């Protein structure tokens, strides 16, 4: 199993509520709906529940002149008859595997307060096992090789508003000095706020390989608790289109996320979350 880097910041009680590790690969057009049932049969003992969801459109981090007028563009070309995305869900509902023709994703989500975050290394191990199973399945049925083209790590954190606190108070508590100069004369502090930050991830040669995107926005959970939802996503292309390179890029993405989370959030919140180093 992968070992956690020694100098990576760590928290005893991080506000994370969901983590997703994913790989996108060149579309395997021969992987059809009937194959999903055969694949599920091999994983059914661990993941006894199956769900159908709409497929997610392919997306890519590319680098050229930068965002054009109006920001980045999102494109979705998708037919109604695309194969659905399938969820294979564990009995306790906190972990699942997602399969579609060009993606494999492993999620952990917090359902109850007592659900502990299993930590990245454990999740990566489950991800690797699932990916290997999928790859072997494709080989067995001669459906085509898996050629990865993007990897993605996402951490979603929920920071509840304190009693009587405004949204902007919570933002200030969460981000500290990042928002220190937003007061406007005669108007005071903002009533509402959203944050979106994008950073370029570079390799040893300083070539861009991906992006870290940080977003924060007010939200409400299903039990109507007002929160700030802080999402961090690291996504990029692999140095080589091989399954063996996937875990390495996911580990890099996780490292960027943890450093990003630590550097943009305030020391006061670090104390609440029990920062160890």
């Amino acid at each position: 199993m992968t070992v956690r880097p020694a100098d990576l910041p760590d928290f005893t009680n991080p506000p994370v509520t969901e983590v997703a590790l994913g790989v996108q690969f060149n579309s395997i057009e021969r992987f059809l709906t009937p194959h999903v049932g055969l694949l599920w049969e091999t994983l059914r003992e661990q993941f006894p529940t199956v769900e159908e969801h709409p497929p997610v459109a392919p997306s890519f981090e590319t680098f050229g002149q930068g965002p054009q007028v109006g920001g980045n563009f999102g494109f979705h070309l998708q037919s109604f008859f695309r194969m659905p995305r399938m969820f294979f869900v564990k009995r306790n509902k906190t972990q699942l595997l997602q399969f579609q023709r060009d993606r494999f994703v492993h999620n952990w989500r917090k359902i109850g307060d007592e659900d502990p975050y299993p930590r990245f290394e454990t999740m990566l191990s489950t991800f690797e096992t699932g990916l290997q199973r999928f790859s072997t399945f494709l080989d067995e049925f001669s459906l085509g090789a898996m050629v990865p083209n993007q990897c993605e790590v996402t951490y979603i954190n929920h920071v509840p508003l304190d009693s009587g606190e405004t949204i902007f108070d919570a933002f200030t508590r969460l981000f500290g000095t990042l928002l220190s100069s937003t007061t406007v004369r005669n108007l005071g502090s903002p009533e509402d706020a959203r944050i979106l930050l994008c950073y370029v991830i570079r390799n040893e040669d300083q070539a861009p390989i991906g992006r870290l995107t940080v977003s924060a926005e007010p939200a409400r959970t299903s039990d109507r608790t007002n929160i700030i939802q802080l999402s961090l996503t690291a996504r990029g292309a692999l140095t080589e289109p091989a399954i063996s390179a996937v875990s390495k890029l996911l580990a890099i993405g996780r490292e960027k996320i943890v450093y990003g989370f630590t550097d943009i959030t305030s020391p006061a919140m670090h104390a609440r979350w029990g920062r160890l180093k």
Partner: protein
Amino acid sequence: MNVITTVGTTFAFDETAARLTEAYTDQVVIERPEIGPPNTMKPDWILLTASRMARLLQRYWHRTDESRRVPPDTLAFALTTLAQILPPSAPPPLVSERGEILQLQWEVGLGNLELEVFKPNEITVVYLGHTWKASNEFSEITDKFWEWFPQSTETPSPLADEILTLHNRASVDPDCVQTAKLAVRDASSLARR
């Protein structure tokens, strides 16, 4: 077959595959009176290029043979790439296929400019006997495209003209109707922004 074609402004994280979290965020909608022409434009080439790619997907629905076809992820990668490398006033390319390879072509200066997308993260640009290859970093190719398509000093053609063109095409080409309707809807929504 109905093909959904949407072209819009999104942030990269919106496309994240994996999120399941049951938290609902409020959209920020800022309605404001128009007091002058918009000073930001969507690139001219987007609408027709997306429409042409959608038509390529539509044609597959009518095929009964086992021939190789351009996968949707190759089309999505091509559009993402064009958004990085093309200047806003560049003309839309002709869209064709060669097996699984997507071909985009323009007539430029002394000859044909061709961009081939073999698969995600694998493109080749050919012009006047020169070839450039790239995966996901397009700085050099971007510079070339901005040379080949210098920014027009005239006002970019209004999006309304593009919509009219699509309407006209839809009236003579039944296959194009659904795509055109969707593209027009998206274009109208873009124009309102």
